[in-house]
């Protein structure tokens, strides 16, 4: 990756400007204890929440940004970020789609996104009566009937403080890593989900339907708890490229599965990757971790990553309960100047724990894609099993794929299998498709979709179809 482009990218970092004119509801850029107190006060948070934030902040001040990831960017000035801003007033937002980058609109159209949703995604000021509100209301009623809690994190802090106190930071402690600690100190909002004992959540939960989802993007915090025997499938993100003025995103997601519970967490991440010169994209530094705390519990992460300028992300599973199962299915595509360092960690602690890792990395144009995976089998994890398959596909000869598998086995009964492959889309495959009448671009996306199939089939149906379309759009112009 040419450092020059990165420099340019970073140089533009604040061009779009974080809210600088001092409205009543905005805290000036910078980070110190006062800012955190102010932020917590604005959200009217209980004392325990503020204490937790402050602890995290104090710890954060002792930490260094990690440098080990296979990505390249200039230092971020954390003092120039504004850590709280209330939803923008309509006056500050684009008035119509005409004010939005035509390329973005073109992509929306290719993905078949309705006009109304395009406006929402692009942050256009729309009428207060918003279509999804009514959708939201009916599905809230259905969830309430089942006893499922699904609400903004900020609401949960007030309504369910006991659950928050018990589980917040129980999977990703506030000291965990630089970005997670920063998030713990300043998190804006996010989702809270609790599925009671024995309940199978009656529908797929999606952030897309979450009311008041706006403006929580930068330091989002999600906590999902599946109580004994519960099941939930949670969908995060959206295939449409999201525009956001905040360049740095440092989210935290914590999952807790108790005895016999199952959580399926699917993500399609398509943050703005920057233009074809690598300018203006999002930095996505996320900490996602699930704890299979109970026996026979199961957590699956499925992710399709096509967006962001830089992605740094390792959804992980702690396999504590005996017979628990962790799964990670991932497709990461990098094109133009995108960089992704992603993978997973599977910590086997309990007996007969099993994990499966299927990672598909695709690099096109000048994209750099790294898989980093850790499989750790603890001394008490009798008969633990891991299967890892890690495939890279290169499109063109200016891109790169890198694999960093780490395996630590402390129990002799463990069985760990690792398979890796790197392939190029072969000329023969392209010719075969073109000889049957497919254009070169269609041929590439066909082959890429085939490559991703093992992962796509793990996605909920509509999501899978969208993901496939998304790959096509993301690969346009990547050939040659």
């Amino acid at each position: 990756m040419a450092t020059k482009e990165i420099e340019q990218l970073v140089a533009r970092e604040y061009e779009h400007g974080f809210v600088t004119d001092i409205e009543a509801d905005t805290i000036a850029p910078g980070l110190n204890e006062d800012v955190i107190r102010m932020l917590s006060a604005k959200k009217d948070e209980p004392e325990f929440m503020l204490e937790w934030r402050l602890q995290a902040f104090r710890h954060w001040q002792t930490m260094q940004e990690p440098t080990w990831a296979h990505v390249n960017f200039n230092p971020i000035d954390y003092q120039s970020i504004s850590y709280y801003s209330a939803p923008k007033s309509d006056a500050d937002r684009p008035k119509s789609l005409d004010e939005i980058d035509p390329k973005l609109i073109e992509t929306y159209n290719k993905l078949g996104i309705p006009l109304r949703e395009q406006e929402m995604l692009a942050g256009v000021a729309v009428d207060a009566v918003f279509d999804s509100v009514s959708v939201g209301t009916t599905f809230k009623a259905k969830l309430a009937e089942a006893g499922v809690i699904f609400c903004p994190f900020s609401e949960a802090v007030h309504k369910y403080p006991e659950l928050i106190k018990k589980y917040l930071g129980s999977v990703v402690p506030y000291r965990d890593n630089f970005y997670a600690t920063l998030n713990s100190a300043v998190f804006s909002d996010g989702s809270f989900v609790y599925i009671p004992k024995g309940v199978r959540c009656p529908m797929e939960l999606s952030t897309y339907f979450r009311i008041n989802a706006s403006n929580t993007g930068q330091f989002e915090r999600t906590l999902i708890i599946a109580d004994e025997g519960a099941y939930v499938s949670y969908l995060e993100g959206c295939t449409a490229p999201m525009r956001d003025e905040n360049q740095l995103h440092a989210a935290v997601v914590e999952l807790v599965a108790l005895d016999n519970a199952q959580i399926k967490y699917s993500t399609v991440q398509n943050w703005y990757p920057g233009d074809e010169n690598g300018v203006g994209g999002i930095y996505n530094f996320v900490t996602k971790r699930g704890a299979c705390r109970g026996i026979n519990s199961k957590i699956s992460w499925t992710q399709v990553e096509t967006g962001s300028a830089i992605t740094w992300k390792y959804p992980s599973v702690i396999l504590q309960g005996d017979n628990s199962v962790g799964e990670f299915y991932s497709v990461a595509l990098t094109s133009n100047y995108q960089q992704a360092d992603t993978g997973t960690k599977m910590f086997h602690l309990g007996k007969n724990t099993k994990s499966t890792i299927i990672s598909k990395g695709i690099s096109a144009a000048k994209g750099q894609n790294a898989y980093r995976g850790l499989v750790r089998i603890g001394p008490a994890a009798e008969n633990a099993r891991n299967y890892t398959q890690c495939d890279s596909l290169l499109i063109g000869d200016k891109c790169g794929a890198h694999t960093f598998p780490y395996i630590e086995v402390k129990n002799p009964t463990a069985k760990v299998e690792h398979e890796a492959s790197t392939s190029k889309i072969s000329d023969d495959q392209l010719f075969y498709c073109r000889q049957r009448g497919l254009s070169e671009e269609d041929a590439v996306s066909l082959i890429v979709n085939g490559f991703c199939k093992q992962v796509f089939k793990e996605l909920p149906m509509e999501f899978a179809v969208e993901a496939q379309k998304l790959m096509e759009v993301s690969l346009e112009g990547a050939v040659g």
Partner: protein
Amino acid sequence: MLEIKDLKATVDGKEILKGINLNIKPGEVHAIMGPNGSGKSTLANILAGRNGYEVTGGSINYNGHALVDMEPEIRAREGIFLAMQYPIEIPGVSNIYFLKNAVNEVRKHHGESELDAMDFMKILKEKMKLLEMKNELIYRAINEGFSGGEKKRNEILQMLLLQPKLAIMDETDSGLDIDALQTISKGVNSLRSAERSFLMITHYQRLLNYIQPDFVHVLARGTIVKSGGKELAAQLEQEGYAFLDNAEAI
């Protein structure tokens, strides 16, 4: 339909085709025979537009177009089909999805409406029956784990679906048992018409017993050294290619 004039081509700087002349009219079936390495596949690949070959002389005219200027997919949509000697595997892409896409690309090119899943399925089933193909093959990834014979059947299935104007078959018969050869020939023969032309590359006369050619050409060391009717094939079968060495000597 196809006029090849003094075609010369190189691979990695090595001249493989040394002046090929061939004329194929609508409805004609031509067979090209010849020893291994004589340039048969090279000719077929150049006609289909595969990378890696450089045309260094001569011309190819296809229905009034200079073929070498056309992208491979345009040639395909304009009716050139190549049943490959070694069909390629594409992991994870289901055969049926691929076939439907291909058919619809060709239809779109001709301004026809795209087939929906139902209509496509109907046509597909019919062709598969003709070729006695197992149903499950269309749901598997393209050619992945197919036996040699299944791959060849799959090539002919595509040919039947795409209804080409010029069908080129590169050693489609190689590695087929007699039953498979018969079914495939049945499929090919069902396509024969006054407008459609065939170029069959083969080593063996036995294919030509099932698909009767109008002309037989012998390709050796990059040129057509002999042309004739179907009786030439029988002669070759009996005498082998030994005469080539004599012909060279003369």
